[in-house]
Each structure stands twice: as structure tokens, then as C-alpha cells.
């Protein structure tokens, strides 16, 4: 049972990342793969600051800010230097590998004897108290983001990804909006790195490898949900993303529990996402 609880915890931890991917890929229509780097960046900054005994609530804004800066770089390269979004992301992600190593100083930092964001609550197991904090965290981010996307500013965000020409003719500097959007998306991704690093108890230079596909898979699983309900509300869409992330982790946990060699985990993830992506296509061609 604790096996699946861990999966739910990881799902909650990764939902910030999935919301970030939702923002870049769905809201802005930009395939941003800075994610791999900014996720590790979040973990790296967390581990380094926490082992220096900075309080978890001071570390959090630092993590968000560094992730946002990484995303802003991708946005600036894409919009101002007119480099393809995918390539902009690859460039920043590659550069971040060195940056992350430089921040960490070595390839792995354990979080031993530090105060994480997870309190010790009497009468609750470690997993349970982690669950409560992660749940609160996710709810806050979810509520904040879905509210933001309903404001005038959020509408401008969504319209930029939907119809950029219109948005420019309606007086918005869409380049700045894209930079801001990518900054926010990668800030959220870094927060995921912050949470996961504390859940697993260490930061590792390789923790972000292939993470973008995990986020993408979560977003798409969420969309299957949303399409079932046939409601086109941004809040429900975002809720679907969070649910999709948790479900995805449970599916992976199930795969491992029936004896899948962990070596093949990424292969299974890739195959699974492929299936999810192709479902709508297969349905259409019937």
C-alpha cells in the first residue's frame, strides 16, 4: 500500500511540472524542453541551499526565480533571436547541465540532517505528513494558476498561444508575453524539482533526464479525462492535468510492482506516451 502512496506523493510533486508543461505546450503552443534542465536546476538549488541550512520557505522563492530565469532565457532566444522554440529549449537545457553541475559542485547531494518542508507530525507516518504538505502545495498552485488564467492577463496569455496575430492587433506585446509565460512554466518546473528533491532526499545531476516526456504524458492523460466530460473550462483542464500526473505515477508504480525491470522504465514511459498521443488519431481514422 505504501508503494502506491509513494506513487501518489510523486504524482503530487510532479504536478507543478505538469502544470508548467501545460502552460508552455498547451496555453502557449510552444514545445519547450528546457524542462529537463530547469527541473534539475530546482533540485540543485534546493539541495545546495538546504545543506547550508537555509529554511525551506526561503529556498522556495529562490528556486522559482532561478527556474524562471532559465525559462526567460529560452523565451528571449526564441522570440528575440528568432530561433526555433525546440532548439532554444535544447540550447538552454544543454547549458543548464553545466550550470547545475557548477551549482552542486558534484553530481549528487544527499539531504541528510536538514529541515525540509515536510514537518514531523505526531501520530502520522512520514509518508502521511509528506502527503498532507504536498497536497496543500498542489492545491495552492492549482488554485493560483487557474485563477490567474481567468484574469485579463491570463486571457492575454491564452489568446497569444491561440491567435498571436489577433493579440498583437489587440495591443499586446506577444513577445514579452511568451517570455513571461516560459519563465512562469519553468519556475513551476523548478518548484517540482524542489519538492521531488525533498521527497526522495537527494538531488542528482541526472534527475531531470527525460522528465519533459513525463510531464507531457501527464498533460495528455489529463486531456483524455477532460474530453470525457466535454467541458471546455480552463479550470477543469488544469484539474485534469493534476489528476493525469497522479494517474501516470500510479500506472508506473503498477508496472514496477508486476515485475518490470526498472532499467526499462523510460522505455515504458515513452511507449505509454506514444499510445496516449496516438489514441485520438486512431479513433479518427476508424
Amino acid at each position, binding site marked *: 500500500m505504501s508503494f502506491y502512496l509513494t506513487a501518489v506523493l510523486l504524482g503530487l510533486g510532479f504536478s507543478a511540472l505538469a502544470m508548467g508543461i501545460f502552460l508552455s505546450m498547451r496555453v502557449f503552443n510552444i514545445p519547450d524542453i528546457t524542462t529537463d534542465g530547469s527541473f534539475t536546476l530546482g533540485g540543485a538549488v534546493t539541495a545546495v541551499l538546504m545543506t547550508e541550512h537555509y529554511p525551506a520557505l526561503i529556498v522556495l522563492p529562490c528556486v522559482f526565480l532561478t527556474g524562471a530565469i532559465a525559462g526567460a532565457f529560452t523565451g528571449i532566444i526564441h522570440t528575440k533571436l528568432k530561433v526555433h522554440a525546440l532548439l532554444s529549449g535544447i540550447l538552454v537545457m544543454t547549458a543548464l547541465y553545466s550550470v547545475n553541475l557548477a551549482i552542486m559542485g558534484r553530481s549528487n547531494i544527499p539531504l541528510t540532517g536538514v529541515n525540509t518542508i515536510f514537518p514531523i507530525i505526531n501520530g502520522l507516518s512520514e509518508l502521511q505528513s509528506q502527503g498532507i504538505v504536498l497536497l496543500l502545495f498542489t492545491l495552492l498552485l492549482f488554485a493560483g494558476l487557474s485563477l*490567474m488564467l481567468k*484574469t*485579463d492577463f491570463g*486571457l492575454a496569455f491564452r*489568446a497569444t498561444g491561440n491567435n498571436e496575430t489577433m493579440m498583437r*492587433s*489587440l*495591443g499586446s*506585446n506577444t513577445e514579452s508575453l511568451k517570455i513571461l509565460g516560459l519563465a512562469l512554466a519553468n519556475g513551476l518546473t523548478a518548484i517540482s524539482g524542489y519538492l521531488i528533491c525533498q521527497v526522495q532526499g537527494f538531488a542528482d545531476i541526472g534527475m531531470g533526464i527525460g522528465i519533459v516526456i513525463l510531464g507531457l504524458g501527464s498533460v495528455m492523460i489529463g486531456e483524455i479525462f477532460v474530453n470525457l466530460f466535454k467541458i*471546455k473550462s480552463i479550470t477543469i483542464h488544469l484539474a485534469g492535468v493534476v489528476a493525469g500526473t497522479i494517474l501516470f505515477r500510479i500506472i508506473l508504480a503498477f508496472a514496477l510492482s508486476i515485475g518490470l525491470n526498472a532499467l526499462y522504465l523510460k522505455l515504458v514511459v515513452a511507449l505509454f506516451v506514444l499510445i496516449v498521443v496516438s489514441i485520438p488519431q486512431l479513433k479518427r481514422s476508424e
Partner: protein
Amino acid sequence: MITLSSISKTFNKGNPNEQRIFSNFNLKIFKNDFIIVVGSNGSGKSTLLNLLAGTVFADEGSIYLDKLEITKYKEYKRSAWIARIFQNPLTGTAPELTILENFRLASLRTKRKGLTIGTGDKFKSLVKEKVRVLNLGLENKITMPMGNLSGGQRQALTLLMAIMDDTKLLLLDEPTAALDPRTSITIMDLAAKVIKEFDLTALLVTHQIKDVVNYGNRVIQLKEGQIIRDITKGPEHELNMKVVFDWFNQ
């Protein structure tokens, strides 16, 4: 008043396919002008519209809005005065946003889009009231995604969106080119009504001879980047289909 003075524009400068559109082009657009711009393909109609909208910049010369020079202003900055209707009826609206949300953004064309939720009941009834004018029954569907509507409906809404915020100049780039004849008439009549009602200055680029006859107070014909006709409609200039048709065969 909008003044274009000594505008020069060449595309692909220095290339074998260099194309000079304008050299030393001058035009004054007066307040409440409703100018119909005609001319064959490549005459510079679209470039003129794009120069005004800020999607194309002049190599030389300057553009003034009253006393303010806006030559170097980017498109989004010019939106503080200029609203646009596009040739593609889908370009003026965002398909995944609702009618209401599209109108909200349009109502903030000249303003900051801040962190407040502006699509409340008060705004809803305002949009309903505006949309009711179209007689399309859309006032009961304002929370529907724009993408569910037809091109004609979306073009009509784009026109209404143009007047949700303060507008000095309305640019219409062949707004009915992709619509069926009946819808075209509806859209053009709506445009003319809106321009009159809101005292707008407007510029319509068109290939339709009947638009030249039916709408506007001033007609400009372009040829190879030069104004070869600039007529203010009045008793001394009776325009009919035959007269205008002959312009193109000279």
C-alpha cells in the same frame, strides 16, 4: 488626421527579385474619411494597409497620427488607435476562448491587461447587448468557444470587437473576400453602420467594384505604388459599376 509623407518601401532590397512598391508616396487621411482603396494585384494596397498597421515598416518617410510621429511604432503599440479587420475571417478572434473572453480582450485593446477578472456579470450583459444587434441569436451563446462559430459570424463579431475600446482608425483588409455573397453584404453593411455610428475614420481595401459604389466617401485607386485616382464622392462624381469597371481597363 493621418499623414503619410514621402514613404518609400522596397521589398527584398539588393536581391534579384527586388520589388519597389512605393517611392515618395504621400497620402492624407482626414478625420471621418471612409476611404475605399482599389487597385490591381501588386499595386501596393496591402502594403499601404500594413504600413498603417505597423506590420511593415517604411524604408524612408514618416507617418503621423495628428501631431504624433508613429513611423517606428510597432504593431501592438499602434493598436492604441488602430483596430483591424482581417481578410481571413478567423484571424480576428481566438477560437479556444469564449465569445465573452474575446470581447474582454478587445475591450482592453488600449489598456493594460491586469490581474483582475473582468468577465463578470456586468461585462456579460454589456457583451450580450452588443451582440444582440447582429440578430444572430449569439447573445445566448456568449460563453461558447469562438471556434464553434462560422467565418461570417466570427467576422461580424470581430467588427463589434473593434469598437469595444477607443478607436481612431479602422483598417479593413478585404474583410469579405472569404465569405459568401449574402454574408458579405451583411458584413459590409454592419461595417458601414459601425463606422458611421462611432465616427470612425476607416480604410477599406477591396477588389469588389460594388463596394466602391456602395460605401465610403472617398475612393483611391493605386497603380504601381502611385495614387492615380483620389475622388471624393459627391454630386460631381456619380460612380456606378460601369464607370468603376472602366477604371481597371485603362
